[in-house]
């Protein structure tokens, strides 16, 4: 009785790993050549589903995504290169369909923006830290007055004797 319960618990623990190994494939006509099919899937993974925007057409089960996957397959079966297949979709839906936007004049800020912001931030930080260091140095250079020095010596000495008592 107890061992069967343990077995049940174990199988429940392991169940998620079974699910993980199953891949999300939609039931539709695939290309016969596995090499071409692999290419079709690879391209589809980089094409944005226009209905659900942040999913690729490979992940989406929207009607339009299904049609677009089929179009990618057809184009590949016609012997087009990956570039040509993507071009076909870009002609109709614009660069927006590519999850990986191309490097162009209109996307310069998108690609270089983060680096520019980082460099500006680093520069600002260096300026700020240098300014602060200089302040600390200036303070260290100001000498103590003689009365202050005598007071410091008195305190240091009294501390030394105090330790022994």
């Amino acid at each position: 009785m107890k061992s069967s319960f343990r077995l049940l618990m174990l199988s429940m623990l392991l169940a998620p790993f079974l699910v993980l190994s199953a891949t999300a494939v939609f039931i539709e006509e695939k290309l016969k050549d596995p090499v071409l099919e692999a290419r079709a899937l690879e391209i589809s993974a980089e094409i944005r589903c226009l209905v659900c925007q942040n999913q690729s057409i490979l992940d989406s089960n929207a009607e339009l995504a299904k049609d677009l996957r089929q179009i990618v397959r057809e184009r590949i079966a016609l012997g087009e290169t990956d570039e040509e297949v993507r071009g076909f979709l870009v002609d109709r839906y614009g660069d927006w369909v590519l999850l990986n936007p191309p490097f162009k004049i209109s996307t310069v800020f998108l690609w270089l923006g983060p680096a520019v912001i980082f460099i500006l931030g680093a520069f600002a930080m260096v300026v700020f830290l240098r300014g602060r260091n200089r302040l600390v140095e200036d303070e260290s250079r100001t000498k103590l007055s003689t009365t202050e020095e005598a007071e410091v010596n008195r305190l240091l000495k009294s501390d030394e004797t105090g330790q022994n008592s």
Partner: protein
Amino acid sequence: MRIRFLIPVVTFVGIAVMMWYALFNLNPTEIPTELVSRPAPEFSLEPVPGYGPGLAQQDLATGKVILLNVFASWCVACMAEHPFFMELKAQDTVDIFGLNYKDTPDGAAKWLARHGNPYKRTGMDLKGRVGIDFGVYGVPETFVISPDGKILDKIIGPVSPDMFESRIRPLLNEAGS
């Protein structure tokens, strides 16, 4: 020196204003068409049964500005703009052609019988391939077509009277029709 404490405040205000603007004024689901000022793609479609004649690429070059409305009987938002199209037809403001997207002939015919037919021509895009050539990604969409059959603009979602005045009327006037 006193001003320096304002830098983070100004930065924050700048970001806040930008995000506020984007939140209420930009619509991420609206993707402008790639096809503006390009000729309409090549196609030739059968009419919705009883609502002919059919629709092909050369039918779009009519010598005046027309609208090409993508509709479907399963499309709820299409019902919102349909009465306005009927009004446009009654006033003879502009010719409207209907592209029936991924529908059944029967369903489309029944829908037009029930809600009225504002279209001069209809074409049935049963497989949705013509729609993809037009860059359609949701229904309804309405294309403004130039006298020589080029795409002037695309309106995504239902056409409202306001939108007609601001986006379509200027194009109609420009062409002098």
